[in-house]
């Protein structure tokens, strides 16, 4: 294909990337020399990989693209480079190469030799290493060495794609070309996403009832509403949470169906944007749509929402507080295991010198539960003394390690009845460890499970501990030094 045709096709395919496409076409044409090494950089979702792939696909230059994400080790990367180059050259020149000599690529020098042999007497070969900064175990000089491959193998031109520009210090040289893929601006984002609007009506309205609502009209409505909707989503949510194309698109797609729900049900017309906005404003007030979840929150909550919507006619906007409460469902643990976990939480967050105050067996049980001075009194005292020391609530700090015997002592203090000294308690500790609710914390012999005197730490937060306590009728806050708000 001629360069102009390539450019035209790419520009029609990838909007708002005209300049980068022109640059690429200028740098990599089949008869002109190309730079030995080019760093293509830009943040995520700026079209680097796809444009590179499409460009070389269209241009008739022998090339290979390697996704460095898939390489586990540096050795793996080197092997992949050689194997992929051999494959690409065989395909491009339509010939059979003797593969035996390229069986092993243990290190960089072997790579140099192999590539040199491979490309000797051939035309230009472009090697694209995509996301080279994502290499899992790259040595300090690997990238620098790769970037200078072009010096030893003259007809090789290398393209490295990275998120941030490679600095001269990593490259050990400053003579490298860069091509920047800037992030899309607001208008660009809106233009890209607005190009293909999703449908309002998944099943078009029947022709008998609405004879004049033609598919053309529907497409026009879709585009009109979608573009207005996109602007709103960007200004209200995506501007502050994720400005890249992928986050913006996923956020918009998540909101689209609930947004047009009243239109589909016939409550509003397709062009009733302002009334629709007011009706659906809660969608833009919540952060659900911008959070990445494995479980689709819409499908999870539809069952509960349908119940409310049948009652009131309209689905109630879910408030964040409601969501939070539903989130903290604790899987039923056995009775003693629950207490062990609570004891572990208290052991982590209470300083050990206060144990006597909180856990001594008194005749009056209420004496133990002492609330520390509230936040208000803290601020008062600090004002009077004028000290600038700010107290951070304990449960916001990292848990401190504790010995196992302290855990058992607190455990026994929490329980009213006596507990037999059975091996089951140790089994439970082991189980909780493998569930990562308790973890061994540092210190000597932390890797050896049998080593006594090792220290432990909890690995869950205050909300989980409180929910645990409530499942066994124990208010954890009453035993916590400093109290909780």
């Amino acid at each position: 294909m001629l360069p102009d045709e390539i450019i035209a096709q790419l520009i029609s395919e990838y909007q708002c990337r005209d300049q980068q496409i022109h640059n690429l076409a200028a740098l990599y044409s089949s008869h002109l020399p190309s730079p030995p090494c080019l760093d293509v950089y830009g943040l995520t979702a700026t079209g680097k990989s796809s444009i590179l792939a499409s460009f070389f696909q269209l241009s008739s230059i022998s090339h290979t693209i390697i996704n460095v994400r898939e390489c586990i080790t540096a050795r793996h990367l080197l092997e992949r480079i050689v194997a992929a180059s051999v494959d690409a050259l065989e395909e491009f020149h339509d010939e059979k190469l003797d593969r035996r000599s390229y069986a092993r690529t243990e290190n960089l020098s072997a790579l140099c030799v192999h590539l040199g042999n491979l490309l000797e007497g051939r035309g230009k070969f472009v090697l694209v290493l995509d996301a080279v900064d994502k290499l899992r175990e790259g040595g300090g000089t690997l990238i620098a060495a790769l970037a200078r491959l072009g010096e030893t193998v003259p007809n090789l031109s290398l393209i490295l794609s990275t998120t941030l520009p490679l600095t001269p210090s990593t490259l050990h040289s400053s003579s490298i070309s860069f091509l920047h893929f800037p992030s899309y601006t607001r208008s660009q984002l809106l233009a890209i996403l607005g190009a293909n609007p999703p449908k309002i009506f998944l099943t078009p309205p029947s022709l008998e009832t609405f004879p004049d609502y033609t598919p053309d009209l529907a497409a026009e409505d879709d585009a009109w509403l979608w573009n207005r909707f996109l602007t709103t989503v960007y200004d209200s949510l995506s501007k502050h949470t994720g400005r890249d194309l992928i986050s913006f698109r996923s956020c918009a797609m998540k909101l689209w169906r609930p947004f047009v729900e009243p239109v589909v049900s016939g409550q509003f017309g397709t062009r009733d944007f302002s009334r629709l906005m007011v009706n659906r404003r809660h969608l833009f007030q919540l952060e659900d749509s911008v959070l990445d979840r494995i479980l689709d929150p819409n499908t999870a909550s539809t069952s509960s929402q349908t119940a409310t919507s049948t009652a009131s006619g309209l689905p109630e906007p879910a408030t964040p507080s409601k969501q939070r409460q539903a989130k903290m469902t604790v899987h039923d643990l056995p009775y003693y295991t629950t207490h062990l976990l609570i004891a572990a939480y208290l052991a982590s967050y209470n300083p050990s010198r206060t144990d006597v105050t909180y856990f001594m067996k008194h005749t009056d049980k209420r004496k133990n539960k002492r609330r520390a001075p509230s936040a208000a009194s803290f601020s008062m005292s600090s004002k009077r003394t004028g000290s600038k020391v700010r107290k951070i609530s304990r449960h916001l700090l990292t848990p401190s390690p504790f010995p196992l015997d302290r855990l058992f002592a607190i455990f026994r203090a929490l329980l009213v009845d006596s507990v037999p000294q059975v091996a089951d308690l140790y089994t439970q500790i082991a189980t909780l460890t493998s569930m990562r609710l308790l973890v061994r914390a540092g210190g000597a012999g932390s890797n050896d499970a049998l080593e006594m005197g090792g220290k432990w730490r909890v690995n869950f937060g205050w909300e989980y501990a409180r929910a645990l306590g409530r499942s066994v009728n124990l208010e954890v806050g009453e035993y916590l030094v400093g109290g909780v708000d």
Partner: protein
Amino acid sequence: MEHQRCYIYELPKTEERSPKRQRTNRYNAQAQLPERLQTYRELWAQQEERIQEQDTLEKADSAVQGKIVNFISASSSMPDERKSVIPTGLIVAGPSIASHGPFFERLGRSIKEDAGSAYVVLTSGECPNLKTLLKNLIKKATSRVDDDDEDDLDRPATSSKHGPKLLNYDLGHIQEWNKRNRVSSIVVALQDSEAFDAGLLVDMIDLFHSWLDRLPFVLLFGIATSAESFEDRLSGNSLRYLEGEKFDVTQSDDIIEKLFSATVASTHVRLRIGPNISRRMLDRQKDHVQNTQDFCDGLKYAYMSHFYASYPSLFLKEDIAFKDLSPDAFEAVRNLPSFRQWVEKKLEQGQAQEVRSLLNSNEYMFEQVMLHIKSSQQALSTLSHAAQVLSNTREALQMSPKVRLSSIWTRAASGELSNSPLLRETMLCIKKIPSDKLVLLLAAMQQLEGDYFSMDISLLQKEIDKLLQTNDTNAPLRTQHDVRNDNLRTTVVAQKVLLSKHKAALSEQDKAYSDLVGRFYDKLEAYFDSAFIDPRTLFLSEVLVYDLKSPHTEVFQPKPRFAIERALASPHDYLGCDCCTGVDGNEAALSATQPATAIVYQMYLESGTLINVSDLWSAFNAIAGDGDEENESKTMAIFQRALAELKYLGLVKPSRKKTDHITKIMWKGL
């Protein structure tokens, strides 16, 4: 021995006997052990079958497994559309980690069968890092024999003939394999996802996602805590690559309940466990572990101990003949407490002749034993069935404190249920039952009708149907005991208010209905009264019910720490020698005759967190040493060994805080 008027008491002739009485023919505890073993195997095989079929392990999961399989086939059935996310199943399998392994194994079987996918289970133990994870994954998926596990960089020497070969952690292997086998999806299940390093998970998801256009991955995560806490561990970027559903596996206490009703509270069981042991097993499930396998093991152990330790258990063998038994067996039966009770009752009833023949004739004894095994088994089955009836009744009436069948059965088996508040409350509720609920109750009871519960439910149902047909109002019929039929009347007599209750006048239908409920109530009460007996009063209850606490507790709930602490703190308990009893009968006192480790340990108990070894030594020398300068080195050796033993037990460790000090790390009684 009331068949004689008077007795002549003769002193036993001690001259002939040795001072310590010896059995002339030694009682052989191992008698007929093979037969008992066989009986045990027979009975346990039946139980195991019940566990398998009822299971729970298959049945209870089947719904969830079906859902997961559907999810996988649904996600793999859209291959045309380029997938941008990995389909992910979050399987919340609950905190009983031990049952996760079998669950994923069964899940794998059904996935392979139904969804036509490849299935690989990975556990955290075999995946310390990404490279090992991939190696394991490839090995399991392709069933490839791993020929080079010494060093990943090594590769077979033959490779140089064929050009570049894939490294053994390259997913290209799976790609090649997939080209040949064409599976619809590759399901990778991480059995204990919590135990995986979060960074490893992120790396793995990232890698799988970039391969997703070539390999149809589906991820399953086994989760013990909650799906939310799992999500919290992953980064937002990897969450973006995943999308899926959550599956809740049946809670293990429901499974235990089902298992219990199948294996213990069922009517076809020949050997039952007693109330004490079942309470112990259930409490253990509730308090410590939640594990169905553990419950089955406990049951199996109870069966084993029953047949191993008790000779009369031989009678449980099916169609046992008289000639198979030695006279010892009958002697053993005659020594059972329940036999004595039974005989005493017979004597009270004046059946002395029968008792005599029971004591003398083995044949007669055999007949009686066979007869009573049948009848006692019948009684026990009736009891179990009645427990079931009671439980279903409560369920049908929706009575508020939900009592599980297992606890009802346990109380019934310990003979506590007759006249208990629970039963009374239920019966009162039946007395007041309105007709709409009665219909439901009767329908529920009809399913339970059988050999052990013969009440003519269908007759009652017909009657009530007839009554309801004549009832033209919408309101259900009510009995005379219903509160709505009472009304209060106040009368003022001499400035005092008198409250009196009056029955409202009942309609004809209500009267007829009350009569019907009354009959139903009487029948049910009679049934419960006859069924809820105390099983311990049954003859041969020792054979039919195993209820010994001792070996079960020691095996399933050992107390290792307590045992060590007790042995060290009071060695006399274990040694039982005269020398260690202590000074002047005071057992707590230290004495030189005690083992050196015990002496040091007791001094250790009295000290604080940091112990000065020099002080410890002088105290030890004062007790164990003899004051002679020359022997001091010997005492020192003993002392050092004792201290080393404490260190070995993990009680002390050297301290860096102070020189010549050791730190105390274990506190007694925890």
